[in-house]
């Protein structure tokens, strides 16, 4: 992986984000009605002075291209506008909420990959065994269950029948002033159900994919060689076959990241998790467009970054690609 490649991918990522900013700009203008009123939010009951200040700030009386330039350059300086509903800059609103979302999404991603790969790899050792059948059925069910409904079912189960995990929020109020270690445990405790809800769908998919790609790998010649060398079965399966079977998982994990964020949006709403999804939901109900657009921007940024990481790790994982441009 050379510097030119990294630079090119980074530049491409910046280009994608520029696209997102232009799309945001277009969406506001395409919406029916006066853009200033749209930006102020229909529920806000904006006064004439407010509308005048919005028009001045966004340059709404200037030509469209100038407006676009004003918008793009202010976003480039980290200014995503002002939320009139929350009466705060959008960037600070998102700054408060991006952490919980990243925590939730990454936990779910790691959980689903680890468990899914393990389940799939074990199932692949007996392609017609019970576990293989289970992985197939589980994957089909996991695909068909609405994620928000799984969350609600968990809440019903764990709030009344098995009160093991908290079903709402990210922190207990009574522990807010406790020491760091206690608070971390508390957040982890709250994280269990939302992360599990989100992980289940993808877990099933990774298990099915790992199983298929392991079966491919296990029937290849290098595995026959490894077996012929007299290696034990465990090391053939886990260190020879699994390593090669992981590449497709990596690709899918990268592609799934956007869907994972969409899922997180629903899961956050169900569990009252104080992240960006919850913010998106609240701001959409209030038609607080600057905030909505800010969330769209940051969520896309997370996907772009995830894609870059996938790209780079793919290059590192697959030596055949190392010297390619």
């Amino acid at each position, binding site marked *: 992986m050379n510097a030119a490649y990294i630079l090119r991918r980074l530049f491409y990522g910046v280009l994608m984000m520029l696209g997102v900013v232009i799309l945001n700009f277009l969406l506001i203008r395409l919406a029916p009605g006066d853009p200033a009123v749209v930006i102020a939010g229909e529920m806000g009951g904006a006064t004439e002075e407010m509308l005048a200040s919005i028009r001045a700030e966004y340059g709404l009386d200037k030509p469209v291209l100038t407006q676009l330039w004003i918008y793009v350059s202010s976003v480039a300086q980290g200014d995503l506008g002002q939320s009139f509903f929350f009466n705060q800059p959008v960037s600070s609103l998102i700054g408060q909420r991006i952490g919980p979302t990243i925590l939730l999404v990454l936990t779910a991603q790691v959980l689903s990959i680890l468990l899914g790969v393990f389940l799939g790899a074990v199932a692949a050792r007996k392609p017609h065994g019970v576990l293989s059948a289970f992985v197939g059925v589980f994957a089909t069910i996991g695909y*068909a269950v609405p994620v928000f409904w799984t969350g*609600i079912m968990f809440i*019903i189960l764990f709030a009344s029948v098995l009160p093991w995990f908290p079903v709402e929020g990210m922190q207990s109020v009574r522990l807010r002033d406790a020491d760091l270690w206690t608070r971390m445990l508390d957040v982890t405790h709250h994280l269990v159900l939302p992360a599990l809800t989100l992980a289940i769908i993808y877990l099933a998919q990774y298990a099915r994919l790992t199983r298929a790609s392991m079966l491919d790998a296990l029937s290849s010649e290098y595995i026959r060689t490894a077996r012929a060398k007299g290696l034990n079965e465990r090391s053939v399966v886990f260190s020879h076959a699994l390593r090669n079977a992981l590449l497709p998982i990596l690709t899918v994990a990268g592609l799934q990241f956007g869907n994972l964020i969409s899922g997180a949006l629903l899961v956050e709403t*169900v569990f009252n998790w104080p992240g960006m999804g919850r913010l998106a939901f609240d701001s959409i109900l209030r038609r607080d467009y600057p905030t909505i657009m800010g*969330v769209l921007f940051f*969520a896309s940024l997370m996907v772009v970054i995830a894609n870059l990481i996938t790209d780079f790790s793919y290059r590192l994982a697959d030596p055949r690609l190392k010297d390619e441009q």
Partner: protein
Amino acid sequence: MTTIPPPVDVGPSPSAEAWRMFRRNVPAMIGLFLLVVIIAVTLYGAIFYTADPYEIVWAPHEAPGVTPDFPLGTDYLGRDILAGILSGGGPTLAVGAAAAAITMVIGLLLGAAAGFFGGWVDNLLMRVTEFFQVLPTLLFAMVLVTLFSPSLFVIAMAIGVVSWPQTARLTRAEFLKIKELEYVLAARASGTRNWRIMWRIILPNAAPPLIVSATLTVGVAILFEAGLSFLGLGDPNVMSWGLMIGANRDYILDAWWPVTIPGIAIFLTVFAVSLVGDGLNDAFNPRLRRR
């Protein structure tokens, strides 16, 4: 005197062969049966069960099976849940099917153009596709629905506009593969127009994976619609399964059935669709069956 030779036995057509494989596949047939039942119930159920899903007919939170008049119980307002399930099914299925159709049309057009013409067309269209893959689908659809009124049409459009990239990629890959085959070269050599080559020669041969993908897209679109309605972004004038879950979610600790039953309806529908999709996949790819 010459005798007419007996016709050569060419065997069953590929689609007849696929149907034969499909028929033997028990889960796929179960899925198909389930799907037919669900469609029939949502289309004709309201004829036999005439209760109004919006009307408050009984005490709130009557459990299922307690009163024979309300077999699935009542919701937090005292509305009949069975009536909601029956009248909510139609819009859910219609939006799912329409959104899948829109997804397929956009994906097919762009994917076919990219795969067939290659060069800068391919480059440009693939960059656009990648761009749409960067946008978080649900969030983008929420924005579209909020900006333009939440009617069933806008919802189906919004789902289609955010979901097409995967179809486009699949179509492109199929077109890239098939356009190099000899029968396509033969068609080119005989002066067949591009338009005809694309849609009459390549597309039918690319159909099996695209049909499978279309089936699975219907399932995804139904889940998508359910998510939007659950968040309260569906058409407020139309009953739907997602809306029922969303409306009752504040009372889940008082009554589990008003959210559980519509969820099971969504699950069964998508489950049936995906069994059919998997069955089609197996029927079109007999070699992969053992996986």
